[in-house]
């Protein structure tokens, strides 16, 4: 039950975009139409669900202070936490490569639709941010990490898809001052959506 709460929290209250502003670069760049936005959102969700538990296991059994004690008492003093950044980003980059190859082999149609986004995901702040938050918050088990990853991914998907939908309408029907066209107005829309999402902050689950 607790894991389910964390899942819901991660979607709405701790939303990656509107609460932490992570993954903004691709959020702003790839939100011109709903279809590509949806594709990128699915890819990000997928990567978060995979990398978060892997990094959680590495964190618990290899990196954190005293984590190596299962190797024997003489390792109990070892603290490798200063390596965590490099390990996390290496896991994310290699997972991206791995997923890219697997998708290419088993589902060429999905690969064709996601193709260009997959390699870009390695440098999406939301993925690394997820792992770093996981490290900060001391999750209880692997399942918590999976649920949080899924929640953060879905929250990101929700945000980018809704922004893309608004921008599609905007491009057709509105007359924006020339200097604000494109990026400027997107920033303001995101800010307004962020303020709307703040209403979830009061919810305690």
């Amino acid at each position, binding site marked *: 039950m607790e894991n389910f709460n964390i899942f819901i929290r991660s979607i709405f209250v701790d939303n990656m975009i509107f609460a932490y502003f992570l993954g903004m670069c691709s959020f702003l760049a790839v939100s011109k139409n709903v279809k590509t936005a949806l594709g990128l959102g699915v890819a990000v969700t997928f990567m978060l669900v995979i990398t978060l538990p892997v990094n959680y296991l590495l964190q618990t059994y290899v990196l954190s202070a005293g984590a190596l004690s299962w190797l024997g008492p003489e390792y109990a003093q070892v603290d490798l936490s200063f390596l965590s950044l*490099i390990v996390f980003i290496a896991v994310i980059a290699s997972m991206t490569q791995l997923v890219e190859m697997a998708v290419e082999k088993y589902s060429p149609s999905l690969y064709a639709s996601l193709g260009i986004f997959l390699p870009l995901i390695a440098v999406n702040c939301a993925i690394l941010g997820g792992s770093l938050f996981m490290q900060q918050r001391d999750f209880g088990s692997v399942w918590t990490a999976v649920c949080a990853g899924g929640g953060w991914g879905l929250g990101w998907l929700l945000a980018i898809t809704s922004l893309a939908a608004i921008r599609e309408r905007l491009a057709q029907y509105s007359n924006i001052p020339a200097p604000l066209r494109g990026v400027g107005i997107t920033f303001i829309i995101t800010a307004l959506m962020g303020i709307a999402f703040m209403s979830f902050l009061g919810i305690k689950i």
Partner: protein
Amino acid sequence: MAEKTSNKSVFFNPFSKDNPVVVQILGICSVLAVTAKLEPAIVMGLSVIAVLAFSNVIISILRNTIPTNIRIIVQLVVVAGLVVIVSQLLEAYAYDVSKQLSVFIGLIITNCILMGRLEAFAMGNRPWPSFLDGVGNGIGYTIILVIVGFFRELLGSGTLLGFQVVPQAFYDAGYVNNGLMILPPMALIVVACIIWVQRSLNKDLQEK
């Protein structure tokens, strides 16, 4: 390309005309997250300048030996190594600020400015122009960070770098700090205003 564009323009263009944040739209995440106060904004800016300059140099030296297939991983590892050094230094000498910045120092790794500059400039240029490009873009990023941080701290808390700026008499007369400015969405609005001003001045940047 570097041979044609002078080192001077490589260094000064990112300040305004080719600013990484408001023109290239890179590295937005950290602009929004760390600018509620001026001090973390400045520290963050300095960290990014350091990491960007040195990773640009390292990648530029290595550019002919890196196999193209795995270049992203190589770049990430170089950047991650530098970021670890910066974050350890901050924890040692500026512990309070590094606590405030929390995960965002680590997130310099995935700051799009880094990948953008490494891909676009350092992979094709000699070390010295790459160094200038790194410092220039870092400064361009810091300028935006400082502007946003300045307005948010002044209007949101009435302080600058922790010192009270808005005099007590104002509060007695009924002035109230704008609590909304501290919330992250307002950073987006401030950046949007900067974009608005800048694109009104440079007409050729406007989108159709």
